């Protein structure tokens, strides 16, 4: 067992940490407290830097032209990248490159040329459309969007909810029920261009973070058969491992904001004097700081263990669910305690805490709510497919 980072990992972390401290945080100081984008010129300048550094689109596999940085290192990097005000949902404001929906890697050569490669070049943007108003925790049962074969096309009717970035995307991966008799095996993933007739962004849905999400409707939308990703009826078989893997850096990003919040709180507790003593001398505050550290470390090690297992090709679904749950819930508790330690200042937009507080709340729902993660873990323990 080796808890030491490799030299390579240490150097990558140092580099990313410096980038966040020296390039991102100073720029962020001049932005609106809820900003999720950089001014265009700054964005372009920083993207040129991350490309030069070879850290642009870190996770893109070598066979797709990326650097293919391993999952353990990416987990460590995710914890660094989120350590600025917009960092949880817009790590480094996207200057390290966006990742495509993982399912897209299952594309055919023709689909790759038309969709994946332009995405990776940053020319086309994509959304991921799974959840519907009927529910996102158990999409295999909930999906009501219907596709009916008509010659070389499929005619799709229905709608999606919570589809992030759909209004600014050029295409997306859409989960559609193509055979109502087959349950889970009746769901197919399509690549859909957003300018297809019948595709409509019905409304922007405001949520507790500044960046809204969307609701979509599809009316007699014709999508060619060749736009099916993977197999017909194989939507849920796509990229399962990759999806479980993606949950790990997703979790680690929560640890990152917890780490920074806790650093701020420790420093504040030592400075702030009430009733004649620094806060740090009060057991009530000391225990909060200790509990923060426990939440941070248990999340961090859970995420790293999940990443390590996945890297070694061993089963890691239980561990990735556990990491997702520990990191998202732990970070929520840490930020809440830090706000308490800061008092009124903790509520202000002078500090990143209030934004973290709102955004980290979403993390207990997105990528599978905590309860669903527990279902996954329970199945593993009991060796049954309970509750699904």
């Amino acid at each position, binding site marked *: 067992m080796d808890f030491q980072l*490799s*030299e*390579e990992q*240490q*150097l*990558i972390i*140092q*580099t990313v940490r*410096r*980038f966040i*401290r*020296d390039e991102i945080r100073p720029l962020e100081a001049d932005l609106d407290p809820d900003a999720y984008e950089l001014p265009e010129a700054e964005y372009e300048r920083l993207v040129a*830097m991350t490309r*030069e*550094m*070879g*850290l642009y689109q870190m996770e893109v596999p070598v066979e797709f032209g990326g*650097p293919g*940085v391993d999952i353990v290192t990416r987990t460590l990097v995710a914890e660094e990248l989120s350590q600025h005000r917009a960092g949880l949902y817009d790590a480094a404001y996207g200057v390290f490159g966006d990742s495509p929906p993982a399912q897209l890697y299952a594309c055919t050569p023709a689909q790759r040329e038309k969709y994946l490669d332009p995405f990776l070049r940053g020319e086309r943007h994509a959304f991921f459309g799974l959840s519907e108003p009927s529910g996102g925790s158990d999409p295999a049962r909930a999906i009501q969007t219907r596709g009916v074969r008509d010659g070389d096309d499929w005619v799709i009717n229905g709608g999606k909810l919570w589809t992030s970035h759909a209004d600014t995307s050029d295409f997306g991966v859409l989960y559609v029920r193509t055979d109502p008799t087959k349950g889970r095996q009746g769901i197919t993933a399509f690549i859909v261009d957003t300018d297809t007739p019948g595709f409509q962004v019905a409304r922007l849905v405001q949520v507790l973070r500044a960046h809204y999400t969307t609701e979509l409707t599809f009316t007699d939308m014709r999508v060619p058969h060749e736009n099916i990703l993977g197999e017909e009826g194989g939507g849920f078989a796509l990229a399962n491992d990759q999806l479980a893997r993606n949950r790990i850096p997703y979790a680690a990003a929560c640890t990152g904001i917890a780490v920074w919040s806790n*650093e701020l709180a*420790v*420093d504040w507790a*030592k*400075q702030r004097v009430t009733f004649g003593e620094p806060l740090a001398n009060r057991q009530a505050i000391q225990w909060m700081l200790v509990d923060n550290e426990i939440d941070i470390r248990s999340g961090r090690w859970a995420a790293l263990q999940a990443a390590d297992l996945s890297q070694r090709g061993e089963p890691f679904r239980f561990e990735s669910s556990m990491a997702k749950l520990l990191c998202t819930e732990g970070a929520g508790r840490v930020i809440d305690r830090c706000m308490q330690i800061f008092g009124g200042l903790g509520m202000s937009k002078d500090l990143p805490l209030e934004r973290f507080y709102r955004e980290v709340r979403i993390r207990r729902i997105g990528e599978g709510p905590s309860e669903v993660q527990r279902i996954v873990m329970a199945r593993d323990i009991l060796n049954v497919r309970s509750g699904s």
Partner: protein
Amino acid sequence: MHFVVCAKQIPDPETPPSAFKIDPQKNEVIPAQGIAPVLSQFDSIAAEAALRLKEAAGDSKITVISMGAESAQAAIKQVLAMGADEGLLLNDPAFTKGDPHTTAKVLTAAVQKLGDVDAVFCGRQAADWDWGQTGLLMAEGLGWPSAIIAKGVALDGQQLSVERVLEDGYETAQAPLPAVVTVSNEFGEPRYPKLQQIMQAARKTVTTWTAADLGLDAAEVGEAGSRLRLEKLFIPEKEGKVELMEGDTATEKAQALVKALQGAKVL
């Protein structure tokens, strides 16, 4: 051309003041727990200067040297990741607790042992103790010219052209090679390492030389050879005091303020 960059590992200057501790008995800084030491910022700028010269000169080599503990390998690797070619750690229990003079002695011996060095680049000072002497003392030891506090360095045939920061402006000095240059923050930002170079740096082995390898006697280096004695290390106490200016009108309060400031010898 063969350039040497001297790199020192120091406590992270970003350490929050509340985590900075000293041992007043031993006159030592206690390393902050959980905060890894870093490469002195000025040294990474010195590395940047050497790298730009290497790029301009072509067919050149950079050796990065650090005198320090085993952990100073990390500082060396950082410069290797920026693009330096070879790393050299000068590590010996006898080297510890020295002064700028003994540090320069050890570094000088290493440069002499390397033999074919054309220029040495140091930071203008180490960002922990801020002595700003090591580079100059090395030049003295090597018998080479030195140009300190550089904001620009260029190769001009067999000479170095160095733009130096002065108190009230800049000057350009010429120095024949070999020479020692200390580099200031006005030089510009050090580059970010590239992923590929990071991977190469991680694979490189750093050579270690001890006092014996350098032909140095333990009595002339480190604490034993030190000519400087640290009398007292302490964290200054900061005291804040509030005094409210009395007065019925703004003019009276202002007058009281002027008096108070004069009394405190601020005005």
